[in-house]
């Protein structure tokens, strides 16, 4: 399975390099001088950004599902993404000249705050109602989103906010996307704690029984989720449902041992988002459809299937 996924990812990446508004063929790479530039400046960075953000979003979704102990939550729909957008909006309002690093830092902090807030609400909900948790997450995210819209409307920044609210890769160019590498680093570090996250998913008693530092692992996981989410929102915008459907499908096929499954989750997420991005590029050529829109439709469909389709599995 891992091999097949990897092969598919490589194939999709190659396709992604050669699909776009400007024609680019294998032969042109060797004959035309501008071709290499196109690859280095635009197509390459774009493909890398898609792969990293798709993979990292899927991983952060899997981690969040373990922390919350609920399979129906993910950062982008349960408020973390909206929290990040709020942070960027506040920086833009109060310190328009701030560097991208400051922006990123503040977005991470507000995203963390939003995630902690969600966890605090969840802990007051009865554990026997998994769908209620998901529901509260969606509404919580919706309310945060409405607050962002409200502030943006007051400050006449609505157009600006739209960019973060709907993920899109067409703006990715050399020199403007490098932050996404940091996402890859954070996701990679999180993988080192895969076992801890798997244990925390079994619950507090089990974690303590197994000698895990429950609090510390919790904080670690929340930090990872917040940073991945915030950086993704800053560089490409929100892509809903990746963190929700990909870990669920992988868990159904390969189980919950994160050490084994997280790489699969990452590759599946990357492949799925890449496929959607390529689809968005060719369906209405030469116009582009944002990946957030494409994935919004496909992801919602998959989620409905998870909710109603094969019920007899994990839940």
């Amino acid at each position: 399975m891992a091999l097949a996924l990897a092969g598919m990812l490589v194939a999709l990446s190659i396709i992604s390099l050669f699909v776009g508004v400007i024609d680019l063929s294998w032969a042109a790479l060797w004959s035309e001088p501008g071709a290499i530039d196109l690859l280095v400046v635009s197509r390459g960075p774009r493909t890398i950004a898609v792969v990293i953000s798709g993979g990292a979003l899927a991983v952060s979704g899997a981690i969040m599902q373990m922390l919350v102990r609920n399979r129906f939550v993910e950062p982008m729909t349960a408020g973390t993404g909206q929290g990040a957008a709020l942070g960027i909006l506040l920086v833009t309002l109060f310190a328009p000249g701030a560097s991208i690093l400051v922006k990123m830092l503040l977005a991470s902090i507000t995203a963390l705050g939003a995630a902690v807030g969600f966890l605090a609400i969840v802990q007051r909900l009865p554990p026997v109602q998994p769908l209620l948790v998901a529901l509260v997450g969606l509404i919580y995210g919706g309310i945060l989103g409405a607050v962002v819209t409200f502030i943006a409307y007051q400050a006449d920044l609505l157009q600006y906010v739209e960019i973060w609210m709907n993920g899109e890769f067409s703006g990715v160019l050399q020199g403007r996307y490098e932050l996404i590498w940091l996402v890859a680093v954070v996701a990679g570090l999180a993988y080192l704690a895969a076992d801890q996250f798997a244990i925390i998913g079994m619950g507090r008693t089990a974690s303590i029984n197994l000698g895990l530092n429950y609090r510390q692992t919790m904080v670690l996981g929340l930090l990872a989720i917040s940073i991945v989410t915030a950086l993704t929102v800053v560089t490409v915008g929100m892509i809903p449902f990746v963190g929700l459907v990909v870990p669920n499908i992988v868990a159904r096929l390969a189980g919950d041992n994160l050490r084994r499954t997280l790489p699969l989750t990452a590759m599946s997420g990357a492949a799925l988002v890449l496929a959607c991005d390529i689809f968005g590029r060719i369906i209405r050529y030469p116009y582009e459809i944002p990946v957030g829109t494409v994935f919004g439709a496909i992801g919602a469909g998959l989620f409905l299937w998870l909710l109603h389709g094969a019920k007899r599995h994990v839940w």
Partner: protein
Amino acid sequence: MFGRRLLLLTLGLCLCIALYLVWGARGNWGFVLPFRANKLAAMLLVALSVSSATVLFQTITRNSILTPSVMGFDALYLLTLTALIFVLGGQSFMQLPAIGQFLVNTVLMMGAALALFGTLLRRGGSDLFRMILTGIIFAGLFRSVTSFLQRIIDPNEFMVVQANSFARFARVELPLLALAGALTLAALGAAWHMRHRLDVLALGEQTAISLGESPRRGLFQVLILVSVLVSVSTALVGPMAFLGLLVVSVARQITPTVSHAVLLPSAGLVSAITLVGGQLVLERALQSSTPLVVVVDVLGGLVFLTLLLRRTPR
């Protein structure tokens, strides 16, 4: 029962309407009054249709959290509109008279709503949280597919959808307003006629059958009425995610009864006061340009969350 409260609400609404029409009007009354009256009529129609659709829908689903907007009805309206333009092409769609556009779209949406929610509500009616979750995801799905189709349609035709889906209170044309008014009144009349049957349907499937009512027929009729009412309000002002939930929750507090003969007017009055009064405060008192919808959505979202959390089993 609750006659006094209904009377007070009516008086409150009259006050709001009067204030809305005359407050801060300067210059030519002949221009200001018709302009404001048009806006006011649209607001009242929207208020009535949203509140009644919500009451009906909550009766048929037997809970006070679900609303047509939460289940994605207005998103469905925009989706059928976009799909229509996508299939017909913007040019030929625009050649239809405005009333024709509206009617075709309403009928299409009715069919879609019956097919989709008819099955869904009959199948999974018992598990409330699953239903709500499904509805929210459906709404998201409709929105994504809508914006997907909009992107595929030519940029020119994209504008057609935009113009149709984000009409504001301010520029409602008279023929459309008249048609919307006629449809709303017809649907409200039908709902009023059903009021006693609705009381029985609200008791649950088994009780309703035992009392000689058919829940399936009720579901069918209510879905049709809700489709018409949501079409009217969405065509006039666009989606209002939480207005229905907010005003019906308030109405249930003011007139705590299950009798539809009280609840329908009470919710309608609260809804009208919220829209007209809210617009009054935002537009005249605070001089703010923020659409009322944004404020209502934040408030309604909080109400929704509280209702959900209170629903948790004791």
